[in-house]
């Protein structure tokens, strides 16, 4: 069964340090697997999509690593890179003002916000990618996160291009107060419209995925996929333990736990994700409807159909 998803070709190997100098990738030669404690050669780990070859532990991925893993080489056009977070509350906590925290996070992560959106090709087929970056304030959902997601979903609905969201998040961003909470409503409302346009939304939940993200766009999907071992839930395990004074069951809130409780469709290993997404798109394409738009159309047709989307990308994108 695992081999089945490889028929579209294996995942794209992740670039190593030399190939992608701007992106933070562990520079150490050796990395210790937090699950099996095995020392792994970092280049080998990178070539295995950052999955431990010994115990199958899925290391967390940066958003751009995820995109590199899924998209055809050089096919990703990023959107809305100029959207910058604001500080509508004049928020400051024990560690200082939100604006300073944003500057520090931007400098450290190399990203302007926690969500990266754009259009890419998978095996030549257009697909909109919306990927959260956990290294940016725990990929918490604030105004820019919500706005970028909604713009992407609107373009998907308009053009009939399917949407793939990849989420990892601590939840809503507290520093933007109720603006953040309202992004839950805003993103779900955009996906309601995408659903009415009968354009598929595939959601991938990765470690860790909590709070306002799990309780909004990330679970409003036609297919919910999770990575093995990912922790996914509404309330965090420590909060639940503190409040209920109960011992949490083994494997609580893991992807496997969610699958057993009927909350997700399927667990897919990272190295099979690309093949799985392509197979799903094939199914919707065969079913007809608007499927010709997002099925395995020849490259030129796809080019024509998404021409305007790519134009949107180059208009606002940095590159």
């Amino acid at each position, binding site marked *: 069964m695992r081999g089945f998803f490889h028929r579209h070709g294996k995942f794209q190997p992740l670039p190593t340090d030399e190939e992608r100098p701007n992106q933070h990738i562990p520079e150490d030669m050796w990395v210790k697997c937090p699950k099996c404690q095995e020392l792994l050669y970092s280049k080998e780990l990178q070539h295995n999509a950052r999955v431990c070859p010994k115990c199958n532990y899925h290391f967390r991925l940066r958003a751009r690593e995820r995109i590199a893993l899924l998209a055809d080489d050089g096919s990703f056009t990023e959107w809305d890179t*100029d*959207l*910058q*977070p*604001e*500080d*509508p*509350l*004049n*928020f400051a*906590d*024990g560690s200082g003002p939100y604006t300073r925290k944003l500057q520090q996070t931007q400098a450290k992560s190399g990203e302007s916000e926690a969500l990266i959106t754009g259009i890419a090709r998978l095996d030549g087929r257009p697909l909109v990618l919306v990927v959260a970056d956990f290294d940016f304030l725990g990929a918490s959902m604030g*105004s*820019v996160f919500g*706005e970028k997601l*909604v713009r992407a979903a609107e373009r998907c609905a308009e053009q009939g291009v399917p949407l793939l969201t990849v989420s990892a998040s601590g939840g*809503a961003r*507290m*520093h*933007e*107060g*109720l*603006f*953040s*909470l*309202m*992004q*839950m*409503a*805003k993103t*779900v*409302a*955009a*996906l*309601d419209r995408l*659903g009415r346009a009968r354009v598929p939304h595939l959601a991938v939940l990765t470690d860790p995925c909590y*709070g*306002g993200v*799990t*309780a*909004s766009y*990330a*679970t*409003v999907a036609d297919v919910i996929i999770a990575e093995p071992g990912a922790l996914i*839930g*509404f*309330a965090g395990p420590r*909060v*639940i333990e503190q*409040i*209920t004074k109960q011992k*949490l*069951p083994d494997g*609580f*809130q893991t992807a496997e*736990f969610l699958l057993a*409780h*009927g*909350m997700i469709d399927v667990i897919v290993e990272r190295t099979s994700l690309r093949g799985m997404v392509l197979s799903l798109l094939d199914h919707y394409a065969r079913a007809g409807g608007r499927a010709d738009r997002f099925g395995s159309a020849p490259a030129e047709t796809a080019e024509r159909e998404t021409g305007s989307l790519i134009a949107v990308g180059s208009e*606002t994108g940095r590159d």
Partner: protein
Amino acid sequence: MTERAGPSTEGRDSPTAWDRVKMARHPERPHFLDYLDELTTEFIELHGDRSFGDDRALIGGLAKLGERTVLVLGHQKGNNTRENITRNFGMARPEGYRKAERLLRHAAKFGIPVVTLIDTPGAEPGIGSEERGQATAIAESLLTMAGLDVPIVAVVIGEGGSGGALAIGLADRILMLENAIYAVASPEACAAILWKDTAKAADAAATMRITAAELARFGIVDEVIAEPRPAHEQPRETIKAVGAAITRHLSLLEAIFPRADASAATRLRDARYAKFRHIGAWRDDVAQAHGLEAFALSNS
């Protein structure tokens, strides 16, 4: 450009955000069922999610409000410890949100407008709630509200606690009592996470901008219903003011989106989408570079 919420301009004697938190949680503040008793007749509670159970913290049914039949949904806190145990302190479980979702569809089927009263510390954090998909239940309730083709009026009457509150709050009109609060997280949780000190809850409450007046300034809340005296001191008057505001907004919505008009349902959904679509605060560097007005704070 973006409007900033400066320091409070209210007088020295006006209540602080933390005072409002205490008022919003006051045990004698009127709760959902008090509003139902006072404002509606012929209430028929509709129980259960048809799947697992009947949540007692989030209840709903059909009721007559003035001359209208409405579908009412609300969180119910208890008036004493025993009731609070039954009502789980107003913290709904997944079956509560699934019941809400079922009743919303019920309302849409018969063209019945929806009124929701929000008053919860938040959705229940618990092992069972996680097992039964608390997050998914909230998300699906939001999805159904986004696509509902009958008018929805939501009123925050006490505590608007995070996702558990919003789950019945994706409405055409969001009203809020003057001493109610609406927050992304409880001030205690925010203080614990960002200050690493729950004793800073009052500071967090002020910084988080959770009061009705501030949220109205942000354009998120459509109307603040005055409490000349706090609701727990003047329950009947407060309830009547809430009832009048609900009726006024329902009449307005029905005038703009008349049921007889074939396009009204679509226009209503589009208007609801536009309302939430514009909520957010951000800066668009490209728009600024071109001297265009940036998409900034909603309605401001």
